[in-house]
Every structure is written in structure tokens, then in C-alpha cells.
């Protein structure tokens, strides 16, 4: 590579070998390890990796308290049931929340796709739809928390239905996840606004970073949003279905 190459210029695709050879060559090469990956995306991945460990710590501590308690765990399927005038349907709200989050993941992936096609309006619209799904998810979670605290009397230190660790595990895990969704909604709206204004078409510099923005940011945002969905897959399986 010529010395005047900036960090954004990488080796031509032809120079990069695929598979295991590519892995060893990328990791032993000069300058960048992650070839053809924008710095923002690499940083988002590293953040998500650290977040994986945080959520794992929550889920593993939940597993530990649940396996070690000598008192029966509250019947999760019944606690989270909801009745629409008739027989209570088990876990129905959680199922709806799961479907909402998957739907929002789908609209997000479409937003990323239209972003790379530089379809400004569709990208912004899809980002807003994703944010609305995210907001409705948080709303349902607020409803679920209210129901649990007010009607069922669940507290972080105890509850009338069984093992007292239920409350603390529930509030920590779903609370931390809900916080991630809320932050995601905020950033989705911010990025949708920038897309709508056309900031990424003219590569306008960011307010905080003073770096040129482009549609790769939509993909980086997408990684975060899919991660939130991914964490929910594990919470759904371990907390609600166990």
C-alpha cells in the first residue's frame, strides 16, 4: 500500500483472502485488523460483546439463585397470564412483546437495506416504524411491571407467590433490557431525523463527533437494535419459559 493511503483506504478486495488464511493474515497485518469494516461498526461490535457479558452475568446469577433456592419458584406461566374477559391466557403479553420485537427487527433490517440504496425517505420511515414498535414494547413492559407491582405485590425482596429472589431477578433483567430498548428508540429517532434531513447524502459532520456521517450509521444502529432483540430471545427462553 502506498504511504499516503489514509485509514479509510484498505487493500483491494482481491488482495483479501477468505476463510482461515484471511483470518490469520488480517490479524497479523499492519494497520487495521477488521478490513472493510467501518470503525463505527467495529466499535459497536466490541460494545455489544461487552454488553453480552453484562447480560450473561444477569442471566447466570438468575440461574444461580433459581437453582439454589429451597422455596418453590413462582409459577411464571400463570404470573404472566392475561385474560381478555375470558379464561386467562398464559404468557400472552410476553408472546405479543416477542412478536413486536421481531417485527421491529425486520423493519430495521429493511431500513439498513434501503439506507445503502440511498433511499432517504423509505429509510427514515422504516426507522420511525422501528422506533414505534420499540416504544410500544417499552409501553407493554411498563404495563407488565405495573400489574406485577400493584396487583401481584411483587417486590425486589419478596412476593406472595414463592421464592423471594423472583422479584429482584425479574426487575434487574427486564429492567436492564427495557432500558436498552428505550435508549435504542431514542437513537432510532435521532438517526431517522438525520436521514430525513439528508445529512448522510451530503456527509454532514456530526454534532458531537465532527466526523462525516453516512448510511453506514444505519447499519451500526441496526446491529444495536438486533442485539436488543437477541437478548430478548434469551430472556424469553430462560426467564419466561423455564
Amino acid at each position, binding site marked *: 500500500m502506498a504511504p499516503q493511503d489514509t485509514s479509510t483506504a484498505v487493500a483491494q*478486495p482481491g488482495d483479501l483472502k*477468505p*476463510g*482461515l488464511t*484471511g*483470518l490469520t493474515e*488480517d*490479524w497479523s497485518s499492519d494497520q487495521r*485488523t*477488521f*478490513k*472493510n*469494516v*467501518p470503525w463505527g461498526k467495529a466499535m459497536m*461490535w466490541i460494545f*455489544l*460483546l461487552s454488553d*453480552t*457479558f453484562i447480560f*450473561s452475568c444477569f442471566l*447466570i*446469577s438468575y*440461574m*444461580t*439463585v*433459581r*437453582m*439454589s*433456592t*429451597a*422455596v418453590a419458584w413462582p409459577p411464571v*406461566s400463570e404470573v404472566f397470564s392475561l385474560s381478555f374477559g375470558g379464561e386467562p391466557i*398464559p*404468557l400472552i403479553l410476553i408472546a405479543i412483546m*416477542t*412478536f413486536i420485537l*421481531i417485527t421491529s*427487527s*425486520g423493519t*430495521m*433490517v*429493511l431500513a*439498513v*437495506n434501503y439506507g*445503502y*440504496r440511498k433511499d432517504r425517505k423509505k429509510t427514515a420511515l422504516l426507522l420511525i416504524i422501528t422506533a414505534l414498535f420499540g416504544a410500544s414494547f417499552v409501553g407493554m413492559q411498563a404495563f407488565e411491571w405495573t400489574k406485577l407491582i400493584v396487583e401481584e405485590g411483587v417486590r425486589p425482596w419478596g412476593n406472595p407467590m414463592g421464592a423471594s429472589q423472583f422479584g429482584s431477578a425479574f426487575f434487574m433483567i427486564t429492567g436492564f433490557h427495557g432500558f436498552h430498548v428505550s435508549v435504542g428508540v431514542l437513537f432510532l429517532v435521532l438517526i431517522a431525523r438525520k436521514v430525513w434531513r439528508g445529512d448522510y447524502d451530503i456527509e454532514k459532520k456530526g454534532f458531537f463527533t465532527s466526523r462525516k456521517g453516512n*448510511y*453506514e450509521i444505519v*447499519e451500526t444502529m*441496526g*446491529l444495536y437494535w*438486533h442485539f436488543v*432483540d*437477541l437478548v430478548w*430471545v*434469551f430472556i*424469553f*427462553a430462560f426467564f*419466561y*419459559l423455564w
Partner: protein
Amino acid sequence: MAHAEGQQHPLSVYIKVWVLLFVLSTFSYMVDYMHLEGYLRWSLILLFMFLKAGFIIAVFMHIKWERWALSFAICTPPVVLLVFIGIMVIESDYTFLTRNLFFGTGS
């Protein structure tokens, strides 16, 4: 070359995975709804969970199309969590045993 511009793939791939995620979520909900118990319940829950997680990571998060340098850096560190889980399973079994001995509750 798609990678120079970013991750561009045909929409049909996304739509297929999207539908598949809905189907898998319905299946995992049905596991609870049908009151399946024991090893069958657990193997199905874990199967659907890993399938869903795998499709989200591979397709939606584009790991399938990334260079191995990135995907290995992302996917290998969480493997150590298995050790952590193993340690905590042993620890909680021990705690459960001592609690039962001490309080004599049983369950």
C-alpha cells in the same frame, strides 16, 4: 463487490429469515402453551432459542457475510461463558444441598 459499499443483500433473504423467526417464536410459545414438561420441554426451548439467535446473528447482523477476522473476534469470547455457567451450576447445587441440610425444608 458488496463489501466495499457495506452490507447489501437481496431483500428476499431478510424476508425469509423474518418469517422464520415468527414461526420459531410461535413454536417456543407453543412449548409453554402445550404444557410440555421435562427433557422434551428443555430441548425444544433451547433448540428454538439457538436457532432464533443464530439466524439473528448470522443474517440480520450480517456475521455470515463478514470476514472471519471480525466474526471470530465476536463469536469466540462468549464461549468462556460456558465455563462460568458450569461453575455456577456446581455452586448452586452445593448451596441448594446445604440449604436443605440446614433448614431441613426440602422441595
